[in-house]
């Protein structure tokens, strides 16, 4: 069971308090009606699914209830950093990339 740092509660809590919520930084267009079918399908159905560092959303559902973002290495299953919704994706030190 992972320990996850909630950036709102500012503490590490066990994984069972959280729920995964898909890839992060997939913003809904302000006016989807302006998008063509292909762009909309891209938004609906296509995700990056990387081997390595993945920006993803979690919700502290059994805690403060807030959605936040995390960078997780999908190879090691390590959560590298968590940050609040709306914040830009942080840069990682080089060694974290190469892990």
């Amino acid at each position, binding site marked *: *069971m*992972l*320990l996850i740092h909630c950036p709102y509660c500012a503490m590490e809590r066990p994984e069972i308090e959280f*729920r995964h*919520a898909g890839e992060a930084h997939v*913003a*809904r267009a302000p*006016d*989807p*009606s302006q*998008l063509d*079918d292909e762009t*909309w*399908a891209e*938004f*609906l159905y296509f995700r990056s699914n990387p081997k390595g560092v993945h920006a993803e*959303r979690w*919700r502290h*559902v059994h805690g403060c*209830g*807030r*959605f936040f973002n995390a960078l997780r290495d999908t190879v*090691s*299953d*390590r959560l590298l950093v968590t940050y609040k*919704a*709306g914040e830009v994706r942080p840069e990682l030190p080089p060694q974290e990339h190469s892990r």
Partner: protein
Amino acid sequence: MSAGAFRTATGGRIDRTHTLRFTFDGRPLQGCAGDTLASALLANGRHLVGRSFKYHRPRGIVTSGSEEPNALVTVVRDGGRTTPNLRATQVELYDGLTAISQNRWPSLTRDLGAINDKLSLMFPAGFYYKTFMGPRFLPENWAWTKVFEPAIRRAAGLGRAPTSADPDRYASRYAHCDVLVAGAGPAGLAAALAAAEAGARVIVADEQSEMGGSLLSASRGAINGVPTAQCAADALAQLAGHARVRLLPRTTVFGYFAQNMAGLAERISDHDPSPDPEGPRERLWQVRARHVVIATGAIERPLVFSNNDRPGIMLAGAALTYLNRYGVTPGQRAVIAGSHDGIYAAALDLAGVGVEVAAVLDTRADPQSAAMAAALDAGLPIRTGTCIVGSRGHLRVSEIMIGAPMADGSIRDAGRIPCDCLLMSGGWTPSVHLFSQSRGKLRFDAAAGVFLPGVSAQSETSAGACGGASGLAAVIESGAAAGRTAAQACGFGLGRARAYRVEGILEATEATGHVNAPRLPQGMAKAFVDFQNDVTSRDLELAAREGFRSIEHIKRYTTTGMATDQGKTSNMNALALVSGTLNTTVPDVGLTTFRQPYTPVTFGTLAGMARGDLFDPIRRTSIDGWAQGKGAAFEDVGTWKRAWYFPRAKEDMHAAVARECRTVRAAVGVFDASTLGKIEVVGPDAAEFLERMYVNAFKALKPGRCRYGILLNEAGFVIDDGVIARLAQDRFHVTTTTGGAASVLNMMEDYLQTEWPDLQVWLTSTTEQWAVIAVQGPRARDVIAPLVDGADVGGEALPHMSVCEAKVAGVPARLFRVSFTGELGFEINVPVGAGRSVWEAVAARVEDAGGCAYGTEAMHVLRAEKGYIIVGQETDGTVIPEDLGLGWAIGKSKADFVGRRSLVRPDMIRTDRKQLVGLLTRGRDVLLDDGAQVTSVAAPAKGTAALGHVTSSYHSSVLGKSIALALVRGGRGLMGQRLHVPMPKGAVEVEVVSPVFYDPKGEKLNG
């Protein structure tokens, strides 16, 4: 001699004055307090304890620990308390213990399954893959699947699980500590002492009943002048005196997970002859440690030679343990053989208690060891450069054949030696299982020929033999150093280092001994590598010849290392054999993954209290007790218990539901709708927020009015629905489906927090706050009007789809005028604490008005008569509002809402989408199956796609016929046409009709 002919007169840690009676396969035997089942059987001269998995070969006890591959037994207490596949080496003896052997019929000594051994040419490597595909010439493989495969599968197997439910309780605990020490042998104890003395909180877990590990099995040697076993006792006493230390014997660290979390399985009562029936049998510990010291020791390897699996052949280290810890000798005339100095200590100790040592055979040509010198001094018959090539004997080894390896690789016959036991040592394999589970990278030590911990992935240290330390002094030193390192890693000082002076030990010249890659004479006899799964050297060679190169593939093809012991004694031998056959190195062949659990863990331990009624929370409404009192039948809806129907004298479900439906339509019914999800949406932007979430328009909705809301996902598909009431300009009462309450709130929070954080809206789940009493039927107003205070419930003041606040039966309520039956209807929301009393007041008046309570089944029939959908029944995640005939609900002037963009994708505007229709059967009583397919002809050609499927099907007592709802391709254009529904007893002809079967104009609603 006490409790067994093979018990020594003195020595060991058993209590000879305390005799324990037990039975094995029905035969009464005696052991001593402190025995394991294995040591007690050996004390009685019993080596034969089981039959092997595939060939049913007679098998004996090989080891003295949890790595035991052969001695699997079933321990019987009573019905559900029967545990198969226990290792006899770990079963603590108690008075009255009943054990039986496994995988034999009719008896252990006369086992008909042993025919498999003679037929073994039929069972080569990959047997299952090659054969269970089935011979193609048999039509449909009937004879194979019905006759041969079941017979073979029955013959190959382990013990049988009991058929009755497990009556025991299992506990679960979370714990945190600075340092977790896995294993309480010399390294673990030294580590625990060092960490505790530096100030760390320490948990020490050991799989055995008595802590001390190899210190308990040594016959000679002292630490700081104190005998080793006494040292263990002293260390344990000191640890027990530390308030910061918790000692967990009988506790296996079975898993090492992310972020230094370990899973521990504690066996609490299995060793107890009369356990506390209220107490738990086992306990799962989930321990989060800041640092882990792995001190799990090493496991001795068997030698691989023909017929190396006869009872009486065991590991030399195990024999030492049985002798020195349990006072048991393995036989009267022993041959001791191997490629490691451990054989000399075993030979000296056995000779010391009067066992005749027939020969000590060292496969090494010129060992040059102090241990050998000591054995030579004692006059033992030692032969170097000698290997074992085979054994004889029926149910027990009686003779071994020896050979001399020649320079050309051949083996020259060197005669035979009669004996009744053979003690072997192929060297020691460090137990790197937990290190590997922690995702640390192993490295291959070519000099020692073993895998050792390499790069750590977590905060841990491997100490002692599992980390490659050799000899007791080095093992203790590495343990003490690991303990101090661990404490330091947790922020404590180094503490003072204890000095350990080890004397009088017969130290081995090498830690592990080289893996004995056997060169076997050609012939029929089997040389076993994996004893538990009956994998022979020939199977591995065959796999290599057939082209398998990676050990991961060879493992799955031959099943080596895949038994319940996960190849603890066999994996290194298998790797050596395969790499030898392929002329490559062990690291090139690779290493299979070490997986949790280290030893088998019961399902009970993993499940803990989460079983039966405690598996999932059970949710009951405030009215539940009333329904129970009326004898209602209940159904599970999610985690809720809902009243299903209220049978009266002699009524079956069909009759009760029919009566309830007729009563609602003719008079009035009362229904507990409390499980509906409820969300309070509040704030200046509440209407804006709901407009964006739901398809409907909400800004124009006036306070006091309701709207039927439909929620889509972004893909445009219907995922929830419910009535939404505007209580005030900035306050909405949103209802959801019973099952959707949590996911709808989660979705709303998601959009609010991450897409539209600028909106000023607050969301609160109020599902559990309100009891909801639905009163439905032409007399509904008559029933509630006298109970309502402070509001006019007349049709003009409170029309269909409106809401007001009032007192009902004296309780402040939100009173809705809504209907899910098509009748005049109200839903009274009162605080849940008053739910029961208001319900009783309402129900009494319903009864007086000729009405009744109705359950969820009648609710379903009534709504289906009106063509009202149930999300999840009429929808399946591919249905848009238009498909359901609900396009009218969409706010056409809205610029955006969740899913809106998807509704104009090309597939969504096709005219041949599946659409909701009604179906009527010609025979009025023919009931279609839910989910049955709808086709254009009675017997469509194979491969024809269905037109759709039946989503709901009921018998309507009000209409006097069966009705069904269905999703049918282009269905609204097929009104009046005949289609077919294939059913198990033949296709049923149906007519496509409107989905609204009852009161299509809706006149009843608006009374």
